[in-house]
């Protein structure tokens, strides 16, 4: 009977007697012919340890292991990676939530620089394309530019993005057309400025997005919202942009 049960039902996730196995993607394009998964084992782990803690311990054993990290608090978005098939941030992923062995890969769909470090140039380029800064038609006032609570509320769920890339790297439309489809992260940022009462470039922003690729490669499969480590909803933000576009014409 037991062989019919998926592993996750047979035993709880997390370290067993403090021990956990890790299978980590290793690849250096300059010296390796092909990528490989390298196996590691760590002891004395607690289910409350974060995956980043484990990775840092592994780097003490193997200093060649490459990954990005910075704040360690889920704020900077540096340590985004594919953890047991799902994009997330290592620093806020508890080992107790992961099945053993933990399979770690770089963010999918992005070129690998080394091991878990990916080239995010295209991701950042798409972010730049939505012109992610306020564009008022009058010079900025000397004092702060007040918004009503309702105007500010419309930005909730749009300003909290940390640009970790988990969403865009989980989006098949972004995998197929990374140069032309802006991806969920950039589109969430586009929505953030379209919805901002202080920005007056709304018409131009909506016009710029209305082609076959930039926004409309989104097929609303919601992978982005599913994986966002900040609990944001890029799919909903894309829907808001569509509604604004519709409002211009109808």
């Amino acid at each position, binding site marked *: 009977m037991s062989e019919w049960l998926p592993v996750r039902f047979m035993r709880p996730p997390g370290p067993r007697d403090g021990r956990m196995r890790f299978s980590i993607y290793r690849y250096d394009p300059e010296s390796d012919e092909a990528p490989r998964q390298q196996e590691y084992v760590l002891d004395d782990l607690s289910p409350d340890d974060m995956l980043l803690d484990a990775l840092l311990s592994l780097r003490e054993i193997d200093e060649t292991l490459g990954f990005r990290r910075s704040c360690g608090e889920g704020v900077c978005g540096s340590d985004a990676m594919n953890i047991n098939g799902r994009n997330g941030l290592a620093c806020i992923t508890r080992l107790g939530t992961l099945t053993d062995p933990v399979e770690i890969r770089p963010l999918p769909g992005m070129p690998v620089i080394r091991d878990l470090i990916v080239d995010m140039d295209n991701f950042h380029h798409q972010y730049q394309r939505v012109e992610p800064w306020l564009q008022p038609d009058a010079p900025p006032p000397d004092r702060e530019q007040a918004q009503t609570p309702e105007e500010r509320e419309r930005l909730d769920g749009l300003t909290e993005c940390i640009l970790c890339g988990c969403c865009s790297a989980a989006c098949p*439309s972004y995998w*197929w*057309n990374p140069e032309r489809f802006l991806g969920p992260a950039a589109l969430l940022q586009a929505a953030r400025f379209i919805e901002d009462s202080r920005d007056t470039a709304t018409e131009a922003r909506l016009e710029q997005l*209305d082609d*076959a*690729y*930039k926004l409309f*490669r989104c097929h609303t499969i919601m992978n982005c919202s599913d994986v966002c480590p900040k609990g944001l909803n890029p799919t909903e933000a894309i829907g808001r942009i*569509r509604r604004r576009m*519709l409002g211009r014409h109808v």
Partner: protein
Amino acid sequence: MSGLSAWLIQRLSALYLAGFTVYALVRLAMAESFSHAAWSDWLAAPLNAVTLWLAALALLLHAWVGGRDVLLDYVHPLGLRVVMLTILAGWLLGSGIWFGAILLEVM
């Protein structure tokens, strides 16, 4: 076709086709005869004819946007994409003309 207009056409045509499918199934279930004459009589009513012509148009537009989406997603070389879009457009146009010819013959 802009992104928004294609998206809107896809949704509006889907709504129309969903409604038409239910209507057509109910109508077929209630039909007493499936003869050519009965089919011709049914199409003699202008409302029925318009409904069916619109369904054909909606189906062609829906198929065009859907097929175009698949090609835009997966076919990246420009030349190949243009050729495949042309084949798709030609095939749908041909199907539409064929459908129209059959319908005119029955009417």
